[in-house]
């Protein structure tokens, strides 16, 4: 399998952080801490720092759980090859978090369904849905509760952008863009 998902993302001049390679829990923690320090050094408001930090974590944990090339290193420890980048635009004080990874063909419909189910919901509706789904016993303790996408949508300025590109017969490249 091609482990180089890199080159999925075009890194532009506004990129302030990028990662391309093997992501695991340790790298996720290091990257999240680096991003947090970077934003604090830019004097970003605290809620903005929190939103970027949390959405980076949600994005990476989704990738670790669902990417087709995710490898289980040990119990509860996974590693996956992926790309991600964070850009900053001073004009409107906006951060853009982009990621790219491989997914199995069957996960394409699952992701699309989840995004479609929350598309167009306002903040209050998203908060209500988050509460409802968080308390749903039957979905509890599954990776697939879909809460991550609700939180991404709740804390993004614009709707989540996704794109699927056929990679081979069984996999797609999955790109995700969050405007925070």
């Amino acid at each position: 399998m091609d482990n180089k998902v890199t080159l999925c993302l075009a890194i532009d001049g506004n990129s302030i952080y990028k990662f391309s390679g093997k992501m695991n829990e340790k790298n996720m923690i290091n990257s999240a801490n680096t991003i947090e320090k970077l934003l604090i050094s830019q004097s970003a408001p605290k809620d903005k720092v929190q939103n970027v930090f949390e959405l980076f974590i949600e994005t990476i944990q989704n990738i670790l759980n669902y990417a087709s090339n995710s490898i289980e290193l040990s119990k509860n420890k996974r590693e996956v090859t992926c790309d991600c980048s964070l850009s900053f635009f001073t004009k409107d004080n906006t951060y853009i978090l982009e990621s790219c990874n491989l997914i199995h063909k069957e996960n394409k419909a699952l992701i699309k369904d989840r995004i479609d189910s929350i598309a167009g919901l306002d903040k209050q509706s998203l908060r209500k849905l988050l509460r409802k789904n968080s308390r749903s016993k039957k979905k509890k303790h599954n990776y697939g509760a879909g809460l991550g996408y609700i939180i991404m949508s709740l804390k993004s300025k614009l709707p989540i952008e996704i794109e699927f590109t056929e990679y081979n017969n069984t996999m797609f490249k999955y790109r995700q863009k969050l405007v925070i």
Partner: protein
Amino acid sequence: MNDILLEQGENTPKVIMNQAKGFIEFKGKSYPENTFAFYRPITEWLKYYFNNYSDKHKVTTVNFKFLYFNSATTQIIFEILDILQDSKVKNMKIYWFYDKDNRNGLEDYEDYSEEFPELHIESKAY
């Protein structure tokens, strides 16, 4: 049942669960790779604690001092609050701490307090 004292990790909170003092606290960031595995002993402890709550005059204090948490931790917080609510223990003080300069913390408090009105969760801005 042994008390639980977990020091703060890089992506896990400090956890204090002291039976004799009736003191429970979560402090820091919470985004372990397998959140449910991390919190399972904690929710089990809480269930045991409240199932064996014989002294009706004893006061239990629960402090939530999270900085950041992932979506799986959100589920766990709901589970913990469910356990607290199901316990029917009256002498309980539950506090949600948040940074006054960060509106997310207040919104989280609003969501939890509205979802669990019987618990009378109090907010503490710092």
